[in-house]
């Protein structure tokens, strides 16, 4: 089980390793990357491999970003196969007990053929005849930012939440020292403040349009910044960067959220104006739903900061040095070193059933770009 042996074999052969999980069971098989076939065949194969011929399935896979995305048509099936590097991890669910919250609603049924899809798209008036399927629901998208707590904040302030989580895009803004004018019992007073000084074009902060240069930063994740130095505020923002909530006083006060004077103020804070970022893969017509659910939970804080723990006690083995060889003024010729024995375990259920998306995410990000095999590593949380 030598790593050096395995890696090239995977690259040279055009086979895609598939690891499919249904319930607590795993199945492993391989597919030809160049000839993946159609989705229905693949669907049948899955049913066959898992020996569940008459069960309606919802097929999902973990993409390179660690997101759980559905496979329900040829396009996203092909996409999944082509992106698998080298392992394609599948998660099967019974349709009837499918946890729809785990990924986006099944807007496209698996019966949809590409032809039908194309027909829909090619003829703009097609949706008059067909049920509306093209417009995706908000939960099919990944949220990147939102304005929150509109009902409890003064209208001049804006509380913006930036979801850095799982994004490769930089947060992309700079802050500076400055002074602002406050109304105090003693009259107007000039006080030091923190301001946004620059937006990185194309960065997350810039793309949301909710923050702008010269906006005054009032709070970071609920903590007032007054009395804190620029460096302190910088450190606070970086420490909260996974889920950054900044309350600003926008320099431009004309785009403020206007509260309706009537009903609707529920008393609790709400996400009122979430802007979304389409997360479709270019090859696919269908929006691939991503896991966005945890971002909606109000107290996911503990979840999203989950540290990654890798148990290495089965795989990694250290060779003890054969005998005490280091004598006076001789350098050690060969030292034992940590050599990861990455056994490819067949189908013994190494993937814990309750993989949280957050951890997958982290794990995959670590793997990404290094082409390291991750088989044999147990991830628990």
């Amino acid at each position, binding site marked *: 089980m030598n790593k050096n042996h395995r890696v090239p074999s995977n690259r040279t052969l055009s086979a895609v390793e598939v690891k499919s999980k249904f319930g607590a069971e795993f199945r492993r098989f391989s597919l030809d990357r160049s000839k993946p076939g159609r989705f229905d065949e693949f669907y049948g194969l899955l049913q066959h491999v898992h020996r569940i011929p008459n069960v309606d399935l919802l097929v999902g896979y973990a993409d390179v970003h660690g997101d759980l995305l559905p496979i329900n048509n040829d396009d996203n099936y092909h996409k999944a196969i082509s992106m698998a590097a080298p392992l394609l991890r599948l998660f099967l669910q019974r349709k009837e007990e499918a946890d729809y919250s785990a990924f986006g609603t099944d807007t496209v049924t698996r019966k949809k053929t590409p032809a039908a899809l194309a027909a829909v798209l090619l003829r703009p008036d097609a949706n008059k005849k067909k049920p509306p399927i093209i417009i995706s629901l908000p939960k099919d998208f990944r949220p990147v930012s939102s304005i929150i707590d509109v009902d409890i904040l003064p209208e001049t302030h804006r509380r913006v939440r930036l979801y*850095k989580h799982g994004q490769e895009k*930089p*947060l992309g803004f*700079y*802050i*500076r*020292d*400055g002074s602002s004018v406050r109304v105090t019992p003693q009259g107007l007073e000039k006080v030091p403040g923190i301001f946004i*000084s620059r937006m990185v074009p194309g960065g997350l*902060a810039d793309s949301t349009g909710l923050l702008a240069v010269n906006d005054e930063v009032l709070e970071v994740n609920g*903590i007032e910044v007054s009395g*804190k*130095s*620029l*460096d*302190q*505020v*910088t*450190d*606070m*923002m*970086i*420490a*909260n*960067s*996974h889920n950054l909530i900044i309350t600003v006083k926008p320099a431009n006060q004309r785009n403020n959220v206007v509260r309706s004077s009537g009903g609707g103020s529920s008393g609790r804070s709400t996400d009122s104006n979430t802007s979304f970022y389409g997360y479709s893969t270019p090859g696919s017509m269908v929006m691939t739903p991503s896991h966005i659910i945890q971002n909606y939970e109000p107290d996911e804080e503990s979840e*999203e*900061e*989950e*540290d*990654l*723990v*890798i*148990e*290495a*006690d089965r795989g*990694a083995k*250290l060779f*003890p*040095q054969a*005998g*005490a*060889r*280091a*004598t*006076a*003024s*001789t*350098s*050690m010729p060969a*030292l*034992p*070193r*940590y050599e*990861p024995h990455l056994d490819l375990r067949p189908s013994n259920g190494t993937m814990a059933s309750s993989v949280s998306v957050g951890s997958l995410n*982290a794990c995959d*990000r*670590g*793997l990404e770009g*290094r082409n390291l095999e991750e088989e044999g590593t147990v991830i628990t949380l």
Partner: protein
Amino acid sequence: MCDFLFSSFTQTVEHGFPNQPSALAYDPKLQLMAIGTKSGAIKIYGAPGVEMTGLHKDTAAVTQIHFLYGQGRILSLLDDNTIHLWEIVQRENRSHLVEVHSFNLPGRPGIESTSATRVTVMLLKLSCDLLALGTEGGGVHFLELPTLTLLNKSLFQDEIMQSIPEEYKCGKSLGPVESLQQHPQDSDKILIGYSRGLVVLWDLNSRHVDNLFLGKQQLESLVWERSGNSFVSSHSDGGYMVWAVSSSNPCTHDPISSTIPYGPFPCKAVNKILWRTTESGSPLVLFSGGMPRASYGDRHCLTILQDSSHVTLDFTSRVIDFFTIHCTDKDKEFDDPSALVVLLEEELVVIDLQMAGWPTVPAPYLAPLHSSAITCSCHISNVPPKLWERVISAGQQQCPLQNYENWPLCGGKNLAADPKPKELLLTGHEDGTVRFWDASGVSLKPLYKLSTANIFQTDGDHNDSLTQAGEEEWPPFRKVGCFDPYSDDPRLAIQKISVCKYSGKLVVAGTAGQVIVLVLSDEKSDHMIDVATVDLLQDREGFTWKGHDRLPPKSGSVVFAPGFQPVVLVQCMPPAAVTAVTLHAEWNLIAFGTSHGFGLFDYHRRSPVCTLHPNDSLAMEGPLSRVKSLKKSLRQSFRRIRKSRVSGKKRVVVNSPTSKVQEANAQLAEHDAEVTPVQRRIEPRSADDSLSGVVRCLCFADTFLRDGTHHGPTMWAGTNSGSVYAYALDVPSQEKFSEQSVEALLGKEIQLMHRAPVVSIAVLDGRGNPLPEPYEVSRDLAKAPDMQGSHSVLIVSEEQFKVFMLPKVSAKTKFKLTAHEGCRVRKVALSNFTSVSSEEYSENALVCLTNLGDIHVFSVPALRPQVRYDCIRKEDISGIASCVFTKTGQGFYLISPSEYERFSLSARVITEPLCRVDVERPHDLSAHRKKSHFKLYYKKKLHTMTVFTVFLIK
């Protein structure tokens, strides 16, 4: 956590040598010495343990200080021309040095220049009721003491001029007053020396010139001979003259003798001269400066002359001032100096003048901590008596004179009992030495010095022999003092220290990747050192180390004096600086980390157990990416250069109307860029941050790593990128140590999501207490840890504290310091706080120093914030970096390169001075002003007052 465990934060005492001293004074009656500094501090020292500090309101340099002999009062002259009177008083059961008066010499009416009234010298009459001030304008003013009221009897140059012969006047002014000296026998006469060379003996009562000495050489200083029959003047040409004083000859033209000791070539000025008579024969002449300008003009020298004996003390830093301790009894015929005290810029040197050869006397305090720059420090509390004795005896063999009984400054009484729990402070230095200090009490005493340079071949070896050979000639130089700012080889610098206080084992690690295991031995030894090279980068291809080379170890055997003797030298490859080191003497293991990974080494079998380098792991990707980022940054900077060149050319070549607008815009943009204020980028820490592979901390623990039922030895390592690696170790029992080897197995790898550098790792037992040190349990020195309840591991990153349950590594509690406060963790320690009321009750707390210089205390393992104190200025980066906590809630940090400030967070353990100085004060100002019932004493005219300071080690 109970409140009574913490006192308010107190900064208790400063250890070491005052930074930038600028003035020196001595009180022969009270036997106290005072040192003034450029930052405006006055420090008083007496017998070991007797210390007091006062700080002027303005941070102006103290240029002169004078004791009012026997009164416990000090006069100080500051750089801003103000004079301040200080008193030693007792308040709130602690003694303070309190400023009671200040005075600013007013300018002469009509003369705008303030420099004329700038005080150059001060003379305090022995009777302590009159102060004479010499000024730059040449006038002498008189003040009444202790009220500091200006008396209307100033003496101006016009008055002197009248009695000067015409041929000496030449129409020139006499220059500033350079020296004022009271006649040793007749207290009404003072000697006034002017810069131009004229010396006048002035009678205060009759306001009349007694004698004139028409010196022609620019004057530097004056000193009386004890009898008052002659005096000595020193001059800017490097010479000194002896003048006879006789009432028969009111105007002396020539001195009895004139010598330029280091002539005939031009010499530098003799800044200060002392002339002390001895019973044994010829007088002792001591002077500073006067070295031949061309050949030794850059030396800092002090010369001692007596008959044919001539020694030129060659110091490594500037001479600030010096005095002799001699007999001041008026009935005695001779001075008979016993000691010479020299204050240098970086240290204090005391020379015994009674012993033949004038040897130096080791000082029990004011130790120059920075004799070589301090690079790290380590504190050991509760030192076992056995280790203490062995360290002291090793130190005494190094420096046999190390008893402080003949210390000449013995004023005041140290009332503190000998501190029971002994404490050691170890400082690692740039020159590869480790110094052991007695940190149990108020004065930080040097105990033992360990040098690691002698096991390596360094360039310094040759240099020494060369310089020694050159110094056989004239003048007879003698190198004195230990301040050595020049490091032979910066690779020798000590980076990390780890000690086992029970087994007397020590691990020191340095800049060139050297890790040295030393064992305390009472016998001299001559042996070879085992060298083991540990390659942290194994078969990593394409990596070339571009840093410094490793230090070549000496071949053959080396002689080691009793003390800590090296047994194994482990050389990390590449030889990057060691960033973490830890020792477990019971398991015979050391662990060390650099920026390239870490290694575990069995020093008993001299065999490496394992190494981990970046290739082996997902998260440890530092050096790889560093290479990348270096390449990237190089590329970027080249691009920038190219760009600027291109744009520069463009501006010259293109000259169309549109380009002018562009140019203007470009200039505007450039202008904008210059104006842009300081801004900070908000971006989460990325995985490929440079230096992410740096190993920040290492720890050994006997705990549950693999399952909840079997505990065993483990090793933990934390990196700069927020990764923690936990290894399960298979350590053979003591008997089988020689046969069986230690094995290590990677058990867990934790990647902190916030990726902040891991600063510290500690394992807590079932009750939430830190695990005891090696040998503590087996030798019945500590309660056994609770192995029934589940253990937990406390991981401290720069941003958060987290407690994870073991063996599952599930998060239990956490505190996000940075997210809440915006400050980052710099130093952290687990301290034990004992209650004031009951010695039985104690609690553990996490003490944390942040980058803002404040200290936070958290309960463990609940991680609830308890208290917060401001400690160090946030700008003082080196102070924050130098901070070290003790296990009992105290701490040290460097307030200057040479001084440690000691502070205490504990209500029970406080180390501060407790001393008594008996003073006699004819007019007690502070008492008179402050408290009415003191008036009674005041009327008595003379009373004895006792001043206490408190020295508590509870």
